[in-house]
């Protein structure tokens, strides 16, 4: 191994970091324990992508960010994430690791809804965080990166929706890595209690084209019986950031977890989006789009594992690859023994825009139960010259025709993003990346 993977941060650093934030003892212990494990655990092994020499350990760990008085004080690139005419009611903006702005509709907070940064949550809702933090969804000891994440977590939000509370307005989080060298070791924990409903959308953004740093993100979504979680994201880290992002859901009886992920990073990225459908009748739709450009290498795994009877899983991945970008798309459906009546469908499609780009779609079905339905489709191809001919025969230029075909190709996923402003912003990012 050519890269020194020895951690730049030790026990005393973490003890101090934790103490400065007045974290509870259990959190400090969790961090220290994770640090010990990180030394010996191996990196994850995403199928068909070698990440052994990627930078996951060289980064600056802290940087502060100033508070802002109003959303309209933010730079234009951040204001793109919402409708300035119609400002969001429920939003947390994290600048590096500091909350720059946060608000939650009073009616929701009166109903017991929690939407706050992870450090405040550790103080004010310690028991709830402790109950779920790296317990049921992601475990500390899965591999080196989950352990590193647990040891060095330096930001994130906690979302909690009590039993029988249905939130119509979306909750929005913006994670703004303003300092070009600082790492985001971000933890998002979403807990939807029985019969509750929420929509959460997050945006990650950075501008470090040259400076190398790391994003190590773990997201845990817990949907209790009959809960419905709609989760949207636009990841937009610049080329200098190496990203590991793990978004995991656990759905209990008749719960629904829907994902709409716009994965628009410009740097090397490993993304795992795994959902465990534990309960009978639980449902998950995992949708993701990406545009790869430059020399970036990306690996996307979408997996839904089904234990629940009559559970339903749908995976849809779409990617556009240009220049010398490489992406691997793994769609995995796993139906466990006893999950009778389960259904699992997966579709992965990759559109190649250049000779040097590489794309690979691997649909995998692993089934240990007889009474199920499952299907998969995968394709890797180029823009169909007949489509271009047809569009151009109506007077549309070749450039515009290609643009229409590419946007159209990604639209089935883009259309599912739950906030109009975020959808628009994703379209703009796609526009920038494909042109």
């Amino acid at each position, binding site marked *: 191994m050519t890269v020194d993977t020895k951690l730049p941060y030790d026990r005393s650093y973490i003890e101090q970091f934790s103490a400065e934030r007045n974290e509870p003892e259990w959190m400090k212990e969790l961090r220290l324990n994770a640090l010990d494990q990180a030394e010996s655990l191996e990196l994850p092994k995403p199928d068909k992508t070698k990440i052994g020499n990627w930078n996951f350990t060289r980064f600056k760990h802290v940087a502060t960010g100033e508070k802002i008085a109003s959303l309209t004080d933010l730079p234009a690139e951040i204001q793109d994430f919402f409708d300035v005419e119609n400002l969001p009611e429920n939003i947390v903006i994290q600048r590096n690791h500091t909350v720059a702005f946060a608000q939650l509709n009073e009616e929701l907070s009166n109903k017991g809804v929690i939407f706050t940064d992870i450090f405040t949550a550790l103080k004010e809702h310690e028991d709830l965080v402790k109950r779920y933090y790296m317990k049921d969804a992601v475990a500390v000891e899965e591999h080196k990166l989950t352990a590193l994440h647990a040891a060095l977590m330096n930001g994130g939000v906690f979302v909690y929706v009590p039993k029988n509370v249905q939130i119509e307005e979306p909750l929005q989080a913006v994670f703004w890595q303003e300092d070009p060298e600082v790492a985001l070791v971000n933890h998002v924990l979403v807990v939807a209690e029985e019969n509750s409903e929420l929509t959460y959308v997050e945006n990650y953004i950075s501008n470090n084209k040259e400076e190398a740093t790391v994003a190590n993100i773990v997201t845990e979504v817990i949907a209790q019986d009959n809960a419905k979680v709609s989760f949207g994201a636009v990841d937009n880290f610049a080329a200098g950031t190496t990203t590991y992002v793990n978004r995991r859901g656990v759905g209990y009886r008749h719960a629904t977890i829907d994902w709409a992920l716009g994965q628009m990073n410009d740097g090397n990225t490993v993304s795992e989006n795994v959902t465990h459908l534990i309960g009978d009748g639980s449902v998950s739709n995992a949708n993701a789009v990406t545009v790869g450009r430059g020399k970036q290498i990306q690996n996307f795994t979408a997996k839904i594992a089904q234990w629940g009877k009559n559970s339903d899983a749908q995976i849809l991945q779409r990617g556009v690859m240009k220049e010398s970008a490489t992406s691997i798309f793994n769609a995995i459906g796993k139906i466990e023994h006893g999950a009778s009546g389960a259904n699992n469908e997966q579709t992965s499609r990759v559109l190649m825009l250049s000779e040097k780009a590489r794309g690979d779609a691997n649909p995998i079905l692993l089934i240990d139960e007889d009474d199920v339905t499952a299907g998969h489709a995968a394709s890797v191809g180029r823009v*169909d*010259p*007949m*489509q271009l*001919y*047809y*569009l*151009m*025969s*109506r*007077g*549309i*230029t*070749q450039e*515009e*025709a290609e643009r*229409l*075909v590419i*946007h*159209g*190709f*990604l*639209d*089935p996923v883009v259309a599912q993003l739950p906030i109009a402003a975020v959808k628009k912003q994703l379209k703009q990012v796609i526009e920038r990346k494909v042109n």
Partner: protein
Amino acid sequence: MAGSTLEIKNLHVSIEGKEILKGVNLTVKGGEFHAIMGPNGTGKSTLASAIMGHPKYEITEGSILLNGEDVLEMEVDERARAGLFLAMQYPSEISGVTTSDFLRSAINARREEGNEIPLMQFIKDLDKDLDFLEIDQSMATRYLNEGFSGGEKKRNEILQLMQIKPDIAILDEIDSGLDIDALKVVSKGINKMRGEDFGCLIITHYQRLLNYITPDFVHVMMQGRVVKSGGPELAHRLEAEGYDWIKEELGIEDETVGQNA
């Protein structure tokens, strides 16, 4: 200006090295409806594709002029903006692009930047044409041709014709696969376009379309050439007697393009 003129002179076209058209001569002017008839395999659709600039067809000899301008020097989109339109026999499906967004792009492609069609006017015009062609309003928001039935695709081609308003349109077997009701609606749309500024080349191998659209000129293609031209009465005679009498008259045994007279 009283209409455009499309002139096809001695056109030879090959596909993958095989010559399909062997010297087609034809002139279509604004205000005129021409029908090209002929059995399968005689080069009718090749003519349509070659005029529009289909990437697979190679022009080996001859010329195509639109108002004196060399069409063969133009890219496909330039041909369209110059005033040509081809209603295709097999329109492509464009996933993720709604019929409405596509039509607006096509209309605006003909207009100067800054002079795009106002959204309300576009919607009004589109609604009117959808009603006229008895198309469900939902088609506007469906992805272009995706999951459309054969009949819906043909109606959509005519919808595009009415929205784009070209100077010269070529309709390639617009009647194939249509039931009688759909055929009537499609014909109604084409007839509505009639006028001094609109010329049309209708390619069909059934006479029945010509029961609803009366052509001014009828041409018969065989062996990659126009072998006979006449007025509407020619279509009626073909309906009644088939193509054999022409073959006999011209001494043709096999009318397909593989053969030479």
